[in-house]
């Protein structure tokens, strides 16, 4: 059951080949058996899940049953879940039980899914390796000595290990796509404003976007269908008609124009990765896509721009974690300053503190103009370059990451080196456009991701290309040997 797509599971449940309780129990058994090796689940809500599954079984097959009724999923622990610990993988929120549901959580519940628990991640979504989690790093199922990527590393690893039918992630600079690439699964970062941020703990508000992570783009389309939509509780949520993603992805892609930014395909690109991407592009060409070179001249500025804007917003967003109303609080504070200093020094991990410091610096009155203001200008420039490129092509393709999953601890001493890994992903967040990462092959027995970037609200277009590709390839069906 665990290797089936969401579409297959929906059919199986409707045909009563198995019940939702059986399906849920099956995944819970897999979590019990396999998760100790990969450390993806922070909080398991087995009891609640089985109750919900039993309720789902009563309506499956009836016309009142929503599309995803009885499908067990897992949520990144950045989404608030009412009555369930929502930690953001931080000591700061280790004791925090959310009193409300994130819109993504309630929408997926309303669509019929069963939540089995909460997934590991980089602390407050800051990191690209999952190593910043207060609960210890998740491991890559393809190689337990390797990182699963981040920040949605728990989501990606859980999907690669087939611990649930789908999962949620969030993406601020590549946090759904890069772990998807590292773990050989499919991860989507939707257009900014398509998926509500209400109840999704903010890292960098102007960049954060929740998205689905699963074994195929068709699964992602199923999840996105439930997650997307205007939310009056999120002022940055966009009123946009939600297409029928499931129908749209079935279209042939003959004539689809795919752009390859020359800045992404230089001699600096690892030759093995380049080979995999090249093969994938050829596959798309076989399906009728037309390949064209495009240019994003200022794309090299994306990383410095990202690492000004994201920390700036994070330094402000994380100010609320002060120990006054909820969360971690230090013992025996001498005075107010001591209270703040120790609560925040003890409650946050190193990477989070590093970004808060960077952000505080770039927003300070003496640096604001030269850093933050300038970064905002470059951000606009980069967004415009994408829009210009989309006048010529429908999709832009690139590797998702410049390398495959690296060893745990390999980059702990060099954060900047870690930041540079966002080269293909962070510009997409700066522009606010959607992108999906799909498995496209292996290098050294580790998965390689192909990134397909679309124009605003072109989720159908990129998922369509991804789905058509997955119909003729089986990279997404590969399961790491230990998790078959």
């Amino acid at each position, binding site marked *: 059951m665990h290797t089936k797509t969401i579409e297959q599971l929906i059919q199986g449940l409707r045909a009563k080949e198995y019940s939702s309780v059986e399906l849920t129990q099956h995944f819970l058994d897999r979590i019990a058996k396999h998760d100790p090796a990969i450390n993806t689940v922070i909080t398991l809500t087995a009891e609640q899940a089985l109750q919900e599954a039993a309720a789902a079984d009563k309506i499956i097959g009836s016309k009142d049953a929503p599309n995803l009724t009885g499908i067990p999923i897992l949520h990144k622990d950045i989404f608030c879940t009412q009555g369930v610990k929502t930690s953001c993988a931080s000591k700061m*929120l280790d004791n925090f039980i959310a009193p*409300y549901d994130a819109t993504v959580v309630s929408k997926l519940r309303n669509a019929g899914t069963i939540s089995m628990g909460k997934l590991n991640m980089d602390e407050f979504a800051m990191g690209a390796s999952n190593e910043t989690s207060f609960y210890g790093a998740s491991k890559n199922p393809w190689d337990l000595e390797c990182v699963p990527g981040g920040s949605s590393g728990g989501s990606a690893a859980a999907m690669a290990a087939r611990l649930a039918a789908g999962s949620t992630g969030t993406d601020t600079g590549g946090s759904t796509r890069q772990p998807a690439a590292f773990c050989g699964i499919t991860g989507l970062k939707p257009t900014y404003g398509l998926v509500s941020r209400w109840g999704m*703990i903010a890292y960098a508000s102007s960049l954060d976007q929740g998205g689905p992570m699963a074994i195929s783009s068709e699964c992602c389309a199923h999840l996105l269908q439930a997650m997307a939509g205007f939310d009056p509780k999120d002022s940055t949520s966009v009123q946009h008609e939600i297409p029928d993603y499931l129908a749209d992805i079935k279209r042939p892609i003959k004539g689809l124009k795919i752009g390859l930014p020359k800045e992404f395909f230089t001699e600096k690109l690892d030759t093995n990765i380049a080979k995999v991407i090249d093969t994938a592009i050829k596959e798309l060409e076989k399906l009728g896509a037309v390949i064209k070179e495009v240019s994003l001249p200022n794309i090299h500025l994306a990383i410095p721009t990202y690492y000004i804007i994201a920390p700036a917003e994070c330094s402000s967003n994380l100010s609320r974690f002060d120990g006054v*109303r909820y969360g971690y609080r230090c013992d025996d504070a001498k005075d107010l300053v001591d209270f703040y200093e120790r609560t925040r020094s003890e409650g946050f991990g190193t990477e989070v503190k590093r970004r808060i410091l960077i952000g505080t610096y770039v927003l300070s009155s003496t640096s604001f103009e030269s850093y933050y203001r300038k970064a905002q200008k470059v951000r606009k420039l980069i967004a415009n370059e994408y829009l210009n490129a989309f006048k010529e092509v429908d999709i832009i393709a690139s590797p998702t990451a410049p390398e495959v999953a690296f060893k745990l601890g390999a980059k702990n001493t060099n954060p900047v080196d870690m930041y540079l890994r966002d080269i293909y992903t962070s510009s997409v967040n700066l522009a606010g456009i959607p992108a999906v990462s799909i498995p496209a092959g292996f290098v050294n027995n580790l998965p390689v991701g192909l990134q397909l970037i679309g124009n605003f609200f072109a989720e159908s277009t990129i998922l369509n290309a991804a789905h058509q590709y997955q119909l003729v390839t089986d990279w997404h069906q590969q399961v790491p040997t230990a998790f078959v």
Partner: protein
Amino acid sequence: MEWETVIGLEVHAQLNTKAKLFSGSATTYGAAPNTQACAVDLGLPGVLPVLNKEAVNLAIKFGLAVGADIQEKSAFDRKNYFYPDLPKGYQISQFFFPILRGGSIDIELEEGQSKTINITRAHLEEDAGKSVHDQFVKNTGIDLNRAGVPLLEIVSEPDMRSSAEAVAYLKALHALVKYIDICNGNMQEGSFRCDANVSVRPKGQKEFGTRAEIKNVNSFKFVEKAIEYEVARQIALIESGGTVVQETRLFDAQKGDTRSMRAKEEANDYRYFHDPDLPPLKVDIAMINTIKDNMPELPAAKLTRFMQEYELTDYEGKILTASKAMAEFYEQAVAATDKKYKLTANWIIGELSAALNKEAMEIEDAPLTAKQLGALMHRIEDNTVSNKLAKTVFEEMWATGKEPDQIIDEKGLRQVTDTAAIEKIIDQVFADNPNQLEQYRAGKDKLFGFFVGQVMKASQGKANPDQVNELLKKKL
């Protein structure tokens, strides 16, 4: 050396909305601590602000009232600092692009002069919560009922040159926000608060001196006292060879002095930046026009109308339009009479104002209603009571809140207008004072007043004075 004072005021007016600026929580004053604070106000992880459009409407209303340039596009920024009653660790305000720029308010000075005080800008922002330091042993309580309540911060130009001008401006602004009903103006509850920027410079010098910002001057009297103390402090400091430093000072109402809170170097770096949770605020002409069409009458227009419609002098008009409540009181009172505009005006400016002043009361708190005062005016008008006895009725109304007719009846104050009854009293007075009568008839005209007095006295003041005069003349 002669010194000149330069003052600019920053006023925080709490906008009269039912819900908070960015959440649905109620804004009612005085609720039990933290009963009007939702997840957004508490700054829980994952919550997001949604702008309350009504607050925007009220800000536009103010903009129209002061002739400000209402910005088609403004934006919200975060002001970052740590304080336990600031739940998010930042306040949402409008730093870079305020909704209103410019505008002005005319103030009245002594000797009938007026002066225009310019407004630099006004912007929307959320209030912080409240720290309670005196109710818990070794702990501070945090009440977040006020957190997120909408404020309009109105920043004046440094146009005022004395504490009297500053108070006049503050009063005019206070009256205006109540006039247009965007703020209840309650200073005790903190709905209308003021910080003063004060500096001095040698008279004739163009450049401004170094200013101190005085916080917490939350009554008209305190503004006056704080400014006067601060001006004297700065002058004494400079004259003794010192220099004024730019700093924030706190006014101590008990001691009547100001003391340093923090110097410029210690000031927070607020790290202002655009709030990514809120899209730019757009105001279109249709919105402005809708509000314009529903604007209440402004003080200047009301004054003109009062002078024309009620035939009042400029002096009377200004007093009666000084506040919306005063103007409403007058119009309601007048409506209960048969066009006794002057009489009613005189009574409000005279008796009523005196009584209010004596008790340090605002007209809103007067123990008698406008309708009741109008009813009393009507009784003067139809000769039921004399103007003099009406004062007795008024005092009783003030003390008991009873209707004037009830008081007149209970106290038997009804005026005697029956000619026969008055003649009977006159006859009695003549009989009791034969000597004076003789002298008068012998040509001592001055005694006429004596007879009037005697008749009024004998009638316990109830005889109609005009009739008494007339009948006396006839009989003498």
